[in-house]
């Protein structure tokens, strides 16, 4: 539990940094940015980042000040069934994504070489990451 408390404290620092960076980014965009271009996209990005960081920061601070909330958070983050669900969901998602991308590559090959190449690179990257991560955990466990 003490380890988890330390983890929440560290998370608080990280969320604070993210919140500050995103708010500064948002302010800079409003003050220095010009209308049009990519400004709305970056504005949305920084706004969303600020909102998520602040929400996470508030819940972390509340947990640090209230033992029952901290315990609930601890249980939610260490529950083994949740871990199993995430693992099963990741496995299924990977299969669906690779199958979907493969189908899209075949379909794209009929009308656009550029789209076909882009999707192939994406699929290749996903497979490389998958095998790299698998190799890492093979050595680790």
């Amino acid at each position, binding site marked *: 539990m003490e380890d988890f408390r330390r983890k929440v404290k560290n998370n608080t620092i990280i969320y604070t940094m993210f919140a500050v960076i995103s708010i500064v980014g948002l302010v800079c965009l409003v003050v220095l940015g010009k209308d049009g271009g990519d400004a709305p996209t970056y504005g949305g990005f920084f706004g969303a980042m600020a909102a998520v960081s602040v929400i996470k920061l508030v819940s972390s601070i509340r947990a640090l000040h209230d033992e029952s909330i901290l315990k609930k958070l*601890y*249980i*939610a983050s*260490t*529950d*083994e*069934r*949740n871990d*199993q669900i995430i693992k099963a969901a990741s496995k299924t998602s990977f299969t669906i994504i690779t199958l979907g991308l493969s189908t899209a590559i075949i379909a794209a090959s009929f009308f656009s070489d550029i789209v076909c190449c882009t999707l192939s690179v994406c699929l290749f990257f996903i497979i490389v990451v998958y095998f790299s991560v698998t190799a890492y955990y093979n050595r680790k466990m």
Partner: protein
Amino acid sequence: MKNKIQELRKSRKVTQQELADALSVTRQTIISLENGKYNASLTLAHKAAQFFGITIEELFIFEGEENL
């Protein structure tokens, strides 16, 4: 794998939430265990057996080569 969690919990008048708190899991995990939808890890099985004061073999009934 079958288990006697529900039976023992009810006989000792323990709620699902109380058991979940004692084992540091969510109530949903206890519900899934009782319904046989989820098989506990060795750590959780050990904690549950300790909670009820019995052995893992008494709490969980292994029914052959279901996951082998």
